[in-house]
């Protein structure tokens, strides 16, 4: 078998094991599904009240677009937003020393392990969101199969970027004993920049700044593709891909520098 395929296979196995673990405790999905549904309901009411008072469109979005935007933007936040704690715990508990001796890339293994379960959860949430969106706002405004594939690919890129950025933040544990605050700051910026509301709603100066950061690639890009697919959509996907590559490079660099600080005591 081709050696690249063989390499990919072990990460496929890691993803599969993680997926089966998650499926074994299917009840664990209930909590995030209930919270996601609650948020969709509350925000559908907010957008209904907003557009009842201010007219048919704000910054190019109408009520239906805003509800669907929120539904899609929350999928990466709920589905791919929780890698940090497991990764940081591995660093603090010393599990990292155990994993380093294994015949796989530390980053690649964690990516496969994390994404295997997260993809399933994101898929379930997306299905739930589509159902709820249909009830609260009408059918998803998809125009073509290409748009659907672009949204799904964009969600995958958003999930990958979420993982890589959270990985880089978790690796700061090499230098800081308590690094949860960094994750909170990251999480809250991601929430305000493109998740709770489209970037076009922010003041213009803020819009100009955030477009130079990876945050729009985390939730804004897939949500925008879902509600306003057009000629500029390819650019959004390219931007996401570029941020994934850049974040992967940062992860390798941070981990490469940080691993020199590991002192294995045996036992």
């Amino acid at each position: 078998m081709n050696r690249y395929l063989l390499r990919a296979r072990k990460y496929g196995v890691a993803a599969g094991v993680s997926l089966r673990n998650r499926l074994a405790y299917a009840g664990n999905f209930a909590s995030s599904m209930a919270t996601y549904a609650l948020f969709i309901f509350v925000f559908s009411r907010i957008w209904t009240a907003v557009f009842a008072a201010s007219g048919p469109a704000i910054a190019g979005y109408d009520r239906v677009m805003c509800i669907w935007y929120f539904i899609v933007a929350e999928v990466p936040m709920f589905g791919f937003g929780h890698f940090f704690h497991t990764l940081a715990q591995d660093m603090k508990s010393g599990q990292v020393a155990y994993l380093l001796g294994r015949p796989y890339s530390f980053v690649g293994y964690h990516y496969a392990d994390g994404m295997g379960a997260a993809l399933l959860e994101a898929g379930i949430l997306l299905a739930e969101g589509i159902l709820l969106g249909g009830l609260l706002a009408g059918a998803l405004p998809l125009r073509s199969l290409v748009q659907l594939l672009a949204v799904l690919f964009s969600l995958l890129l958003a999930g990958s970027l979420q993982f890589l950025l959270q990985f880089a933040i978790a690796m700061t544990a090499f230098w800081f004993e308590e690094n949860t605050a960094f994750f909170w700051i990251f999480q809250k910026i991601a929430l305000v920049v493109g998740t709770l509301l489209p970037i076009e709603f922010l003041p213009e100066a803020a819009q100009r700044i955030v477009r130079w950061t990876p945050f729009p690639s985390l939730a804004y890009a897939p949500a925008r593709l879902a509600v306003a697919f057009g000629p500029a959509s390819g650019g959004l996907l390219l931007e996401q891909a570029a941020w994934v590559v850049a974040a992967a490079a940062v992860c390798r660099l941070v981990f490469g520098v940080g691993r020199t600080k590991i002192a294995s005591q045996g036992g």
Partner: protein
Amino acid sequence: METRKRAFARGLRSYVRFLATSFSVNLQAVIEYRANFAVQFFGMMLNNAAFALFWGALIARTGGIGGYGFPDIMFIWALVSTSFGLAHIVAGNIRNLGLIIQRGELDVYLLQPKNVYLNVLCSRTVVSAWGDFAYGFIVLALLPGFGAERLALFALLSLSGAVIFAATFAAAESLSFFMGNSAGITAAVREFLLSFSLYPETIFDKGMRWVFYTLLPSGFIAFVPLAVYKSLDWRLVPLLGLAALAYLGASYALFKLGLRRYESGNQMGTRI
């Protein structure tokens, strides 16, 4: 009659001393880990501030939502944060009550000469709740018209809100006596009560608003207090206090009813 009054006053003083001691011990325990305390304190304030940015950006575009302006939304965020924080500072075990019941770990509280309900709830504090508590006062100080009278009113409204939060969460957790594992219902009650309290009442259909004054009392935690605060109408404050006592009484009654069904886990336990 006089003797009974004295006994009541003595009992009340003893419980005030007991709560003060619990609070003091809990505080010393969290301050022992200063870095962790600081991270959670400021992290929670940051979490709340992120939503302020959201509302600021949205209301700048729309002028208001369902009749609520930016100061109104910030007031309910301030009040709910401080009430929620106070409930979890003083009665931090409301998060764990269901699990304690489920594991049969109430024995250690049953053997002590204090009310079990109060004892178990107040035996822990939640570190991040201090951030919630402080956030409300900071936001309040930035709101227009802030002064000594509004600060006093806010403090009283927070107190009744905290009692309602604690009573409602404790009631949901007490369902573990009857169901074994009530984690799903408890999580739903927590999320729903908090979420409904943080958004304008008017965005929800009139048909569902009765829920805000019964099962999920967001009305008494946020919406009525907003009207009281805006109009500086102190007459409604005692009524909110009575509502808080009613929820506390109902929560306590449910706990007492459930306690008859309690099964010990026969575990050795200590409180140091």
